[in-house]
Every structure is written in C-alpha cells, then in structure tokens.
C-alpha cells in the first residue's frame, strides 16, 4: 500500500463511519463486526457489538447488535449512501470459553436476520469457530484484511 490512510482503532460497543477513508482495526472474539460498504460512493462504516439484543435496562448503545446495525445503516445514510447500494461483510462470533454459551452464534444470527430484513446482501463473511479474529477494514475500498488471533478478543 503506497498512500498512507488514517488509522482508527474501533472499540467494542462503538461504531465508525466518516467521509474520509480510514483503515479501521478491531479485534473480535464472540463479538461481531458488520462492515458496510457502498461501491458507488466509496463510503464504508463498521460496528463492533458484544450482545445480540438490547435488554432495555442499560443505555441503548451499539453494544447491542440490533442497535449497532440500525445505527450504522442510518449513519451511512446520513453520509449520503443509499441503502440499496450497501453490501455487508460480517466477522466474528467465535465460541469462546469465557463467554456465555452461544452468544457468538446469536450475535451472528442477529446480523444475518437484520441484514436480510434491511435488504443488504452479505457478500463475504468469516464467522463462528473458536478463534478470535483481528480485522483491518479499508472504508474507502471495502476491503477487509483478516487474520486469526490467539489473544482473546471481545
């Protein structure tokens, strides 16, 4: 890669979508990250959620899949991306010993179901399994570089 692109480290329970292209890094265990990208505008965004559904007790933050996905779609729409141009790449949702059984699977399921409902196609994914993942998402090209990590992610 020749041109330097700003870097951004994405924390669990947060999301990222800006006009300027960034290389966004995040580390996933049972958490799931949904990367959305629109080829026509060259804009992309990513979230990183820990649990599938908001419980109604804590803040309605992108810690929860249903909120994280909806917020990301809305944020990209505000940047001028049309929903029917968005495609998705989904990562994470590993089964990890120190987490509640099945939380990874449920995190994956909420992404699949919500994206289908929103009519956003999943064009690539690497989900499940037992290993954590570290991903680098180039928001201006939509490319995702992924490798498995032994370090426990979130």
């Amino acid at each position, binding site marked *: *890669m020749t041109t330097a692109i700003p870097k951004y480290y994405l924390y669990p329970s947060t999301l990222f979508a800006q006009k300027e292209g960034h290389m966004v890094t995040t580390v996933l265990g049972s958490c799931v990250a949904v990367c959305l990208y629109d080829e026509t505008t060259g804009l992309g965004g990513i979230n990183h959620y820990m649990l599938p559904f908001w419980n109604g007790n804590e803040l309605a933050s992108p810690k929860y899949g249903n909120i994280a996905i909806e*917020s990301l779609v809305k944020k990209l729409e505000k940047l001028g991306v049309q929903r029917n141009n968005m495609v998705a790449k989904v990562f994470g949702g590993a089964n990890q010993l120190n987490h509640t059984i099945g939380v990874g699977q449920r995190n994956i399921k909420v992404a699949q179901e919500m994206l289908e409902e929103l009519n956003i196609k999943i064009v690539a994914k690497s989900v499940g399994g037992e290993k954590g993942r570290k991903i680098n998402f180039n928001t201006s090209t939509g490319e*995702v570089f992924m490798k498995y990590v032994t370090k426990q992610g979130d």
Partner: protein
Amino acid sequence: MKKLTDQQIIEELSERFEQNQQAIKEQERLMEELEEVNRKLMESESVKSQFLSNIRNEINNPLSSILGLADKLSSKPGDKEQVMYTSGLIHQEAFSLDFQLRNIFTAAELEAGELQPNFGKVDVHSLIEGVLKKFNHLVSKKGLSTEFRCTEGLEFITDAGMLGSIVRNLISNGIEFNKENGKLILEASIEDEKVLKLNVIDTGIGMNESDYNIIFDRFVQLETGVTKSHLGHGLGLTVTKAQVELMQGSVSVECIIGEGCSIGVSIPLAEEDDMHTFSDSGNVFFFDDEDEGEGEVF
C-alpha cells in the same frame, strides 16, 4: 373411499387432537411472549415520559434559581457578604446543572457509539483530589467527613476525561446517598501494575443484594415517584458503568444494610493496540503477505 377400522379412526383422531393441543400450547406461548414484549414497551414508554418530566425539573429548577439570583445580584446586590453568599448559591445551582447536563450528553454520545477512549498518562491522585474539591460545598452541606486513601503521585495510563466522569459520578452518588454527618471514603490503588482500582464507600442506608444490579440500569432510582428524596434521574451510574466497560473494566457493589455501600471500579491498563502505537504500514504489509498464509482478504 378407504375404509378405516374403529381403531384407526381413534388413532387418527387422537393424533389430530394432540396436534391441536400443541398448536394451542404454541399459541399460548407466543401470546405470553407478546404480552411480555408489550409490557416492556409500555414500561419503556412510561420510563421515557418520567425521564422527560424529571429532566425538566432537574434542568428548570437550577436554571430558574440562577436567573432569579443573578437578577437579584444585579438589581439589589447588598453588601459584600450578601454578594458573596448570592454568588455562592449561583455557583451551586450552576454546578448541579453542569453535572446533569454532562451525564445527559455523555449518555447520548455512548448511545451513538461515538465516545472513544483517548489514552494517556494520568495523575490519578491529583485528578481525584481535584474532583473531590469541586464537591466541597455538597460535602459540607451534608456535614460529611471525607477520607482519600491514595499514594501521592499515583499514575496510570487511561482516559483522563472518562476517569474524571466516573469519579464525579461515584462521588456524587456517595454524597447523595450518604447519611447526614456521615463519612465518605475514596480509595484508589493499582493492582499488579495492571489494574486501577477505585472504591467509593458511603455510610448510607445500604441496599439489598437483589438491588445491586438495578442501580446501574438507566433512569432507575430505588426510590421512585413524587416522594423520592434523592436528586438526579438515575443516569449517573448507568453512564459510569458504560464508560468503565468501554475501557474493558468492570463495576462491583458491596453493601451492609444500615451501614453503607461500597461501589468499586476496576479499569485495566490500556493495551498497546489501544494506544494506536502500531506502525503505520506494518500491519497492512503483514495482511498482504499471503506467503505467510495467515492473513485473508475479504
């Protein structure tokens, strides 16, 4: 037409009956689920309207006081002592307004997923001391004695803004739910050079173990309704917990009924990745290097 024996008819009928029963059961289960969701929805509606009316009071009351006092100050200032007294009151009201607004804005940032930790070296001792000082007027109003247990010059790599917000809320909580002339103890230490531990101990009425988690729920105070005796709208500890979790930490509660509560916070040291220190191009090359067979491109 096929002829069925009596036995076959009975079997067929009981099978259908069984299916019917199951369908009814399934329907009942769905109905229960629906009722549950409905109940939660109504609850969230009432929470929202309660929150709006609470928030109106919390913001309007100090604001009207400030307006009134400032008006008095400019029209009938009185002698120096009276001016000092009035401006002291204005400060108190503005302080509480500032405190509430900060929590509301932080909650909004957290809900938008836009609050991002920004790590650096923080002098924990002077940060906490500074926050505590700002609460002096509330501490003395309630006649509390304070004790701050912390090594001078204690340093830790964390987000100064978030730590300040966490400490502010813990102290405010420890004052609000303390008894008159009680004691407020603040403890800060670093465990194994890796974890920052904070404890805020009050001498209030304490609470049941079953309520430990509820206090971190949003818009919740154990005592509700028009007769509730405590200020705030149940956002402080919710925001605190969310900020602590954003820094990969955890909160804990321990109480003794009638003697008081201790609210603890553990924040781990920010990791290297979190410090954004990794090289600008190294990672990309690493991922691009397909000979290694470790990275994948999607």
